[in-house]
């Protein structure tokens, strides 16, 4: 069940230029959190009313704290980046469904693109099977070293400065990676590519989507995505990303 909490900031550091890593103490939320779920973070300044959805990047072993890794994209994330250890922040979570963990028999590819990489870290930790981890960047890499303990890591960069030059699909193809299931989070063009790739190779693909959110809990219908079939809740071909997602089977949604 989602809860609202005034979380304590345990640490905050700039992991790469403009990318921040923050640990929050929030036992109420951490104890039942799952990889692929997200939090709503609220701004302290009263002129910014909407929550900022940020994925769970890691859950502490004792399940009392959560790690978030986020990019300074605008006013809200800029405010968050200014917070220090000891400050508090209003958060709600854990929200959404999270990634379903497949059994240990399968071969999985985890794909993260840009700021879609953070949620793959906790997933990599919790997935108990053979894993290839493909991380796509524009240029500067971040968080990539932390994936090493959990599987074989492949990188792609748009400028070719690191790993394969190109995108994550290029990296998969060049490294001839095989899989029964794909988990992916990243920008929509990347997800489209992954969906097409998975379909072509007949692989089950779980995609984590992004959309602007207002309530974060399924009440306002701001964050919908088109669906192939009529959605059980909305009774139209539209589903709530914050509630039924953010993780969907690729074949069930339209991108």
């Amino acid at each position, binding site marked *: 069940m989602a809860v609202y909490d005034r979380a304590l900031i345990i640490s905050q550091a700039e992991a790469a230029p403009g990318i921040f890593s923050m640990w929050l103490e929030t036992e109420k939320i951490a104890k039942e959190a799952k990889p692929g779920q997200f939090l709503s973070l609220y701004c302290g300044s*009263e002129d910014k*009313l909407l929550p900022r959805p940020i994925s769970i990047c890691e859950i502490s072993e004792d399940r009392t704290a959560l790690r978030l890794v986020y990019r300074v994209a605008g006013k809200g994330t800029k405010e968050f980046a200014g917070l220090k250890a000891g400050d508090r922040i209003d958060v709600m979570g854990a929200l959404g469904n999270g990634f379903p963990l497949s059994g240990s028999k399968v071969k999985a590819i985890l794909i993260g693109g840009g700021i879609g990489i953070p949620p793959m870290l906790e997933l990599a930790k919790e997935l108990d099977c053979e894993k290839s981890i493909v991380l796509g960047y524009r240029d500067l890499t971040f968080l990539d070293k932390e994936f090493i303990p959990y599987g074989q890591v492949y990188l792609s960069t748009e400028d070719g400065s690191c790993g394969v030059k190109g995108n994550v699909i290029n990296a998969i193809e060049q490294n001839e990676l095989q899989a029964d299931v794909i988990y992916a989070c990243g920008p929509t063009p990347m997800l489209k590519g992954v969906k097409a790739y998975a379909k072509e190779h007949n692989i089950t693909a779980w995609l984590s989507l992004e959309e602007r959110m207002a*309530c974060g809990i399924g009440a*306002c219908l*701001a*964050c*919908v995505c088109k669906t192939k079939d009529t959605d059980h809740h909305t*009774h139209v071909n539209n589903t709530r990303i914050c509630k039924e997602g953010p993780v969907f089977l690729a074949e069930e949604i339209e991108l």
Partner: protein
Amino acid sequence: MISTKVTIAGVEWNNPVTTASGTFGSGMEFADFMDIGRLGAVTTKGVSFTPWTGNPVPRIAETASGMLNAIGLQNPGVEVFVNRDLPFLKKYDTKVIVNVCGKTTEDYLKVVERLGECDVDMLEINISCPNVKEGGIAFGQNACSVEEITRQVKKYAKQPVIMKLSPNVTDIREMAKAAEAGGADALSLINTLTGTKIDIHKRKFVLANETGGLSGPAIKPVALRMVNQAARSVRIPIIGMGGIMTGEDAIEFLMAGATAVAVGTANFRNPMATAEVIEGIQTFLVNEGINDINEIIGCVN
């Protein structure tokens, strides 16, 4: 003992706080965070006769102390509402107000008729949604059509009818009087002000719908002015809304002449917002030594 009971069109609420339509779903999602039974009333998301898909995304954008929305009244239709959402709401000791939307007068009447068979306390008729091409605001920006649709709805309605007015008009008093003349039992205002936002890097509108409805604290001064103008123009009770975040904000609306208030955008900043508004009102009454909330309604006039 302080009394916070108010009576709107013969329906007694335990306190003057309801939810603004579209910001609280049918309450289910908020039940994790608060006791819905504490609300004076729950006002539901707009309900149409058939399911509506709404607008393409992005549907919302943040603005200074406000937000724009262009949800486009997505909803599963009145049958799903009656069979799924209404039974949930009836478990609580609160009044149920169903917000009704339509594209044609007939649409509205079919929903009103269907709800007439149900255990619903009041109907709120949304003639002021700026986000649908047909119906919605078109009905709400002209005094004659406000009066006419009110009269039609009243013919079919089994419950008291609240007409929800659009602020996108030259003179809100005219619209308030037209609704009253058409037989409305109460008014609610304001719905959102039409606005827009541009992404200067992409050189296009942020919302897929181009424009959306502005809500939140940014619009509170306009909402208060209109509630006050309406309250001075009609005898029927008013449910005031627009940017209410705290108990103090709610008190402003009551003093301006509203008999009750609705909390909307605040639910997105804080899922316990409505409960905190109720507490804030109570604290104010205690501190000021007011025994009955009805004493302050319209007291600035």
